[in-house]
């Protein structure tokens, strides 16, 4: 057992965990942040994507101990109170989700994509960048639409800040 200290959604957190605990299990099992999902066991599906120090990472690829001292953002941490993050709103408005299981990982990956590409995003780039997130429901059509829409919204909201 080891103690790990890190920041999650702005809050300082410490937990005593088995050394083999993955970050995703720390979030789900120890901290009850069950919005981050597990969809595979080979780091292929992306349902568990969170942000570590602002970068999208599959939280099943990281030992919780490796994340010590980092600042983690999960799907539960991106809205501002009742105000949805523009990416969340875009997924809702464009029907970018069906069963909702891949959605948290999709949204976290998509925010990172928009952050990296800014206004230079097009459909091909989004499709290529989302290659590490699997969705079985939507055929990706409306996810791509959502990300394009959110890219515009995020530019506007950044300009307003």
């Amino acid at each position, binding site marked *: 057992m080891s103690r790990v200290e890190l920041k999650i959604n702005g809050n300082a957190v410490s937990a005593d965990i*088995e050394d*083999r605990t993955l970050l995703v299990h720390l979030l*789900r099992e120890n901290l*009850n*942040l*069950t*919005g*981050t*999902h*597990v*969809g*595979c*066991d*080979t780091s*292929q*599906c992306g*349902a568990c994507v969170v942000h570590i120090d602002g970068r999208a990472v599959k939280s099943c690829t990281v030992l919780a101990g490796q994340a010590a001292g980092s600042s983690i953002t*999960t*799907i*539960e941490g991106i*809205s501002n109170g009742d105000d*949805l993050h523009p990416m*969340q709103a875009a*997924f*809702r*408005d464009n*029907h970018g*989700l*069906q*069963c*909702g*299981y*891949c*959605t*948290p990982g999709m*949204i976290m990956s998509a925010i990172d994509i928009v952050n990296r590409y800014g206004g230079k995003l097009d*459909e*091909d780039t*989004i*499709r*290529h960048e*989302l*290659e590490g*997130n*699997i*969705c*079985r*429901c*939507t*055929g*990706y*059509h*409306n*996810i*791509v639409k959502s990300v394009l829409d959110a890219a515009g919204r995020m530019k506007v909201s950044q300009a307003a800040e």
Partner: protein
Amino acid sequence: MGVEGIGASVVRKEDRRFITGKGRYVDDIKLQGMTHAHFVRSPHAHAKVKGIDSSAAMKMPGVVGVLIGQQIVDDKVGNLICGWAISSKDGSPMKMGAWPAMAPETVRFVGQAVAVVIAETKNQAKDAAEAVVVDYEELQAVPDIRAAIKPGAPQLHPEAPGNVVYDWHIGDEAAVKGAFSKAANVVTLELTNNRLVPNAMEPRAAIAEYNEAEEHYTLYTTSQNPHVARLVLSAFYNIAPEHKLRVIAPDVGGGFGSKIYIYPEEMVALWASKKVRRPVKWTGDRTEAFLTDHHGRDHISKAEMAFDKDNKILGLRVKTHANFGAYMSLFSSAVPTYLYATLLSGQYVIPAIYAEVMGVYTNTTPVDAYRGAGRPEASYLVERMMETAARQLKVDPAELRRKNFVTQFPYQTPVIMAYDIGDFGASLDAAMKAIDYAGFAARKAKAKSEGKLRGLGFSCYIEACGIAPSKAVGSLGAGVGLWESAEVRVNPVGTIEILTGSHSHGQGHETTFAQLISERLGVPISQVQIIHGDTDKVQFGMGTYGSRSLAVGGTAIIKAMEKVEAKAKKIAAHALEASENDIVIENGEFKVTGTDKSIALPMVALAAYTAHNLPDGMEPGLKETAFYDPTNFTFPAGAYICELEVDPGTGKTSFVNFVAADDFGRLINPMIVEGQVHGGLAQGIGQALLEAAVYDSNGQPVTASFMDYAMPRADDLPSFKLSHTTTLCPGNPLGVKGCGEAGAIGASAAVINAITDAIGNNKLEMPATPNRVWHAIHG
């Protein structure tokens, strides 16, 4: 239409919890004192279990118990059932081997459970499962259909000699023989419908809790049909009586058929929860999903179609072998028979059809319904046949189809189905316009000048859904009726709760069903709550599969609403001192037509519950129930056209355009409908280009992870161009047909027809990987 009523693409009510990470799936639930289960699974495709030594495992940290197959047999937990009885040609019933929840003596596929370890934590259960020693005596395995029916093949079940479950047929063999004897041309085709793994993104999971004081069980499970699960668990598996078992299917992360069935893991979790007197949780991982979620498709077929000199179809003869895997899953027997061969008429007038289907056991994961279930296999066969015929007869593939379309409705096919309505020409027109068919030849020539092979493929599918009229399916061997139930509760404050037997696992029922209420009462959808997925809350219902939720479940809601409205009108008329025949419902108010007198819904509801001033003899309350049994299947149909390019140097396929023109009858929420089509198309395209569950000759699965099984990813797929044509379904008051499976049913033939058109070689099997396409081009 109201702002939120029928036809409005309102955003989904359920989305907020999903986009904020507040969905509640089974694995998100923790119960006090909960233990964790991990299954010990067979690494062999066929073996005798000579002994299980769990002594070392029992001593491992945190282990609460190790339970083995013989114990579940000793406790008289029932074997898994198949709920649809099919008879062979000779009248004999299908031949099935026993399927205990954990194998006591023989394992017949890789991944079959032989024991379960229950421990304080998941990791402890996994660690201890490694220490369970199982002594196997390997037997020869047979994973392949052709090999399984050869003389001398390894036998899976003594009850099924030759590994044959049934040898079934449908149609008129003599009439087909007559048709072929008159034929000017005969077109033949052999094809494989590749085995697929459903892969809902949420792995299956179960939490079972036994309450000793009440002798009552609660099961949280990833189910598309919690009441069916409760019924089967109690009536057949003998685990708990129906009134002592509550089944809850909370948010479920996709199903696609794979979560219809009641699996060994749920049975074992329930049984074990009483044994260890603690709640037991099992969450499958993706590897377990590949090994144990029931697979889809897996047919090999030979088909012949006879044409007269004017290219009118005279007859169709089909022989199919269907792989059932090692055991007969819950509805497996119906999939390659009544859900497949009954659709072999496609959109066409085919005067004579005869189909034979042999169902075969192999040492593979059981096969059952996966999105479309039999209908994709039928559609793929018919639509590849039509394209093949057009090439052989040297006619335009659209014109050949058009010449043979059913145009008079109702139309009785020679294979049971009676198509109620459709306009196949209209959807083909819409698709051809959307793809600019007239300009294709020029585009193909231009691509050729750039070194690319461009192709175009049609698929004019029809399916039968809105499953299903109970009497009809009962006469065909179904063990259940396929009606649906609904309850409408108008609360004293006028808010409305709809309790439905349908189950949403991505389909958006919480929105679509609320729109039905909004349309009728003129109230906002925020005033309507849809409740589903809990057998303690909702009366018995049949669940969601076969694109039935709106056509059957939605109609049940309408039927219950009609009763509620009739009573509410009486109450309103009494309050307004008017005749109930003069009451109309508008914008949430009950109005006396032609006057300014009205009473708002909440006041009517309050009057119903205070009961201070109701018409004489009226019961208090405002709540009604309906059970709705459909009178026919519904018949969604459409035309898909795929245009793509093949790189002859690499065999790689690139989409140029994919258009879909569907007729689903009336659309309640077009946004949700289109989302369903997108997802279905992705699965159909996945089957055509990427996906295949592969076993080696020993029955070892070689595609048991997302590393090996090619799931469609965002950059494998195009954006889709959708359009709709409309003929209203006459069989239900909403005029709806069902949209959940169409994409998966129609897409694969369009893709393969396009590739074979591009490369000029019709011998191509799915998935059409670059390797296969390259060899089809270059030999």
